[in-house]
């Protein structure tokens, strides 16, 4: 603190010193003395420093206005009785330094009042820092000069502050994830004079060979193509510019950058700097695309659902009346045939609306957990004959089960649609590889990462060596009624159904396709941490060890003891059992039960609704429910009060554990044959007309 502007103080001292010498010299010369005295007073009064003067006894001689500004108690009047001792005491109290040099000087003054030279920084009542310099002059007077040095200190602090802020700014620039680059257009070739860390990262290895070369080198290093021309033009014209550029990075991955260049103009109007800010916006771009895709699919879904709803109403009227007309037309074969055609057309229409509704369905909670390995295995076996000799299907599935929570037919339908599409993409034949494996949530595509619902995902990958798709086709692949297959060969709903089903199960699809090389469809399903709901555990020939876990049976029997017996046997096997004491009650029970009823065990003869009629009434609502009739009478023949349908499955009373177990096992395994029948019903379209033009693309949905 002592070192602020000491030279100014010295000049001031010289001035005052000179003044006093003049005063002494002028003693006795009255007129001149008066003039000089006036001049001295004038100088002291108008000085920009504060002055206070004491005589050799320490009594107050004079002070100026300025000092009263620094020390308000020193107004001319009050200062009259102020002594040097008082002033020192004041200084001592207000000195900013801790060494208390004032005290030493005070002691010094009392010992040797003539020989000291004093300098101290004090802080006045307002908090301003003042440098106080004192000097004894010619054994007569002690003169103090006070100067406000707050201003000087502030400037110093500002300098320090600026330096600090500069460092902070630099740290901030280095920490930024935006690549920042600065060039100096005042030099020839406009060399780059600064890169931040993010920019170095963007440039990668290329950075080390760049040196201070200009913008072209930077754009070349980043592999910009067309965009660099526009950017360079803007830079050479010193215009501000902002563009987005797409580059192909490592592993053919697309990267998006936004580049903003700004010309900084100095006060003289000259271009001082050119600053480029690079931001990677790949994720943003992907999300944007995803979002617009999701929105489009939602809109299409709503549209499809609306159409399907109204269309269903129309269909049910057509179907209902044609059925009734057929009933009333027995005997008229020609008209009956026409009506049959109407009915089969309305069935096709109903299948269509069902698909449209599947596409637009939103996530529903299904309580059932299935083993995906089992479903894929069975489904692939069933699909094999569909593919023909020219297509090889290679299936790779893990040994351990993969529990996935979704209705069983979801995976079946997904596989069926994807495999049929793969088949149709290979009119000349080829190879389909179907792989099933698990992946951690972190390695699933970005698309699901936004809405992760499980730790692990089951990935079903279906690769074909077919024609592949271009970008345009890929974008529309899930749109309802979009098809590349020829007229009449596909409804354009297959992939929409896949989209709806996968979405509903909380999964996602990723499609990668290359023209002429083939397509890879990856479907991800969240793996459930619950165990598989339905499980058949049975040892060949040993009925006592059968376990039908997760299955549900409905027992309709009017004899209470028998109903209880059968129910107990079924519960022992692990089934959930619903009971009803007659046919109508059975109808009510199954109507209120929301889950799947796997098997109906019904007495044939019951009061009210009999077993056969019950089975018939239940069949259309629950076509998958297997029926086992229980009767004390022989199945058919004269003795039977109700004749059973030909294909009926019958168990004679009294029912025993072993025969019921065997029968159940056989019935419940029939499902697979039913699936085969469903597949055989599929249209057998074979050829694909694709209008591809040599581009490749990629699309995904969630």
């Amino acid at each position: 603190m002592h070192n602020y502007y000491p030279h100014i103080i010295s000049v001031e001292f010289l001035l005052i010193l000179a003044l006093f010498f003049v005063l002494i010299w002028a003693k006795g010369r009255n007129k001149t003395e008066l003039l000089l005295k006036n001049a001295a007073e004038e100088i002291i009064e108008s000085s920009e420093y504060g002055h206070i003067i004491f005589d050799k006894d320490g009594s107050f001689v004079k002070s100026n206005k300025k000092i009263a500004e620094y020390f308000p108690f020193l107004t001319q009047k009050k200062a009259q009785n102020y002594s040097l001792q008082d002033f020192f005491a004041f200084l001592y109290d207000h000195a900013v330094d801790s060494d208390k040099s004032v005290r030493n000087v005070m002691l010094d003054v009392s010992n040797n009042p003539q020989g000291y030279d004093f300098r101290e920084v004090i802080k006045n009542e307002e908090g301003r820092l003042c440098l106080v310099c004192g000097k004894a002059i010619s054994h007569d007077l002690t003169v103090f000069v006070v100067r406000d040095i707050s201003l000087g200190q502030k400037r110093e602090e500002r300098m320090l502050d600026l330096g600090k802020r500069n460092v902070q700014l630099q740290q901030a620039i280095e920490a930024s994830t935006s690549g920042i680059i600065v060039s100096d257009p005042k030099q020839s070739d406009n060399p780059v004079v600064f890169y931040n860390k993010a920019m170095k990262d963007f440039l990668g290895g290329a950075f080390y060979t760049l040196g201070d070369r200009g913008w072209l080198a930077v754009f070349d290093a980043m592999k910009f193509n067309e965009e660099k021309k526009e950017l360079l033009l803007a830079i050479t014209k010193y215009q501000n510019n902002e563009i987005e550029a797409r580059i192909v990075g490592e592993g053919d991955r697309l990267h998006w950058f936004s580049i903003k260049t700004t010309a900084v103009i100095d006060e003289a109007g000259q271009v001082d700097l050119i600053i480029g800010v690079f931001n990677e916006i790949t994720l943003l771009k992907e999300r944007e695309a995803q979002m617009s895709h999701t929105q489009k699919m939602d809109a299409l879904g709503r549209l499809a659902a609306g159409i399907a709803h109204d269309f269903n109403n129309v269909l049910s009227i057509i179907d209902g009346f044609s059925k009734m007309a057929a009933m009333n037309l027995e005997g008229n074969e020609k008209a009956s045939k026409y009506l049959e055609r109407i009915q089969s057309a309305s069935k096709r229409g109903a299948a269509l609306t069902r698909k449209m509704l599947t596409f637009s369905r939103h996530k529903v909670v299904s309580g059932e957990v299935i083993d995906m390995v089992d479903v894929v295995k069975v489904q692939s076996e069933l699909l094999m004959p569909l593919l023909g000799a020219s297509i090889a299907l290679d299936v790779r599935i893990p040994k351990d089960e993969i529990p996935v929570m979704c209705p069983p037919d979801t995976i079946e339908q997904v596989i069926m649609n994807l495999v049929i599409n793969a088949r149709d993409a290979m009119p000349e034949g080829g190879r389909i590889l179907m792989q099933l494996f698990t992946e951690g949530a972190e390695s699933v595509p970005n698309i699901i990462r936004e809405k992760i619902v499980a730790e692990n995902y089951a990935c079903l990958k279906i690769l074909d060596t077919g024609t592949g798709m271009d970008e345009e086709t890929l974008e529309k692949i899930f749109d309802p009624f979009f098809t590349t297959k020829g007229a009449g060969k596909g409804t354009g709903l297959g992939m929409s159904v896949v989209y709806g089903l996968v979405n509903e199960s909380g999964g996602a699809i990723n499609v990668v396709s290359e023209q002429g090389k083939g397509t890879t469809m990856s479907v991800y399903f969240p793996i459930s941490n619950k165990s598989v709901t339905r499980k058949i555990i049975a040892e060949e020939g040993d009925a006592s060890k059968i376990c039908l876990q997760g299955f549900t049976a409905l027992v309709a029997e009017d004899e209470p003891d028998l109903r209880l017996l059968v129910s107990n046997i079924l519960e022992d096997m692990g089934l959930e059992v619903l009971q009803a004491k007659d046919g109508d009650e059975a109808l009510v029970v199954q109507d209120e039960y929301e889950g799947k009823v796997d098997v109906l065990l019904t007495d044939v003869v019951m009061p009210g609704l009999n077993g056969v009629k019950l089975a018939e009434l239940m069949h259309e609502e629950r076509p998958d429910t297997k029926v086992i009739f229980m009767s004390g009478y022989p199945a058919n023949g004269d003795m039977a009060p109700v004749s059973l349908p030909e294909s009926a499955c019958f168990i004679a009373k009294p029912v025993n554990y072993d025969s019921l177990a065997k029968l159940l096992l056989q019935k419940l395994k029939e499902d697979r044959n039913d699936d085969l029948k469903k597949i055989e019903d599929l249209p057998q379209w074979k050829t694909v007309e694709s209008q591809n033009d040599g581009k490749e693309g990629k699309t995904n949905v969630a």
Partner: protein
Amino acid sequence: MSLSSKLDHGIDFSEVKILIVDDQSEARAMLKNMLTEMGVTQVFEAPDGRQALSFIDTAFDFIDLIICDWNMPGITGVELLRQLRTVYPDVPFLMITGRSDMGSVAEAKACGVTAYIRKPFSITQLEAKLRVVVKKSLVKA
């Protein structure tokens, strides 16, 4: 309403009097035909919820069971059900819903629908549902 006394010994549909509420005349006609095929002889029709309400208010004793479409302009099926339930808490009510109306099913259940049937349905399905409705009403009675 005296459904229970009519249906004690097995269900005989010829005795059941049914009110159909649907805004589409073809749908009403079809439903009426189906019911006739099943042996129902007394079928009444209302083209909207308002007329259904006024019919029920004046002739409640003439009907045993109501079959109503969910989707109607003005008073919807569920609103009709809600209003009916305040006055006739036990009237057997079969709701016809569309395929995508899973939400509506939950809502109808909350309002005390006796049963619901999803479009499109066959005569067999309708018969099964009617039996469910009648059986439930019998149990209640």
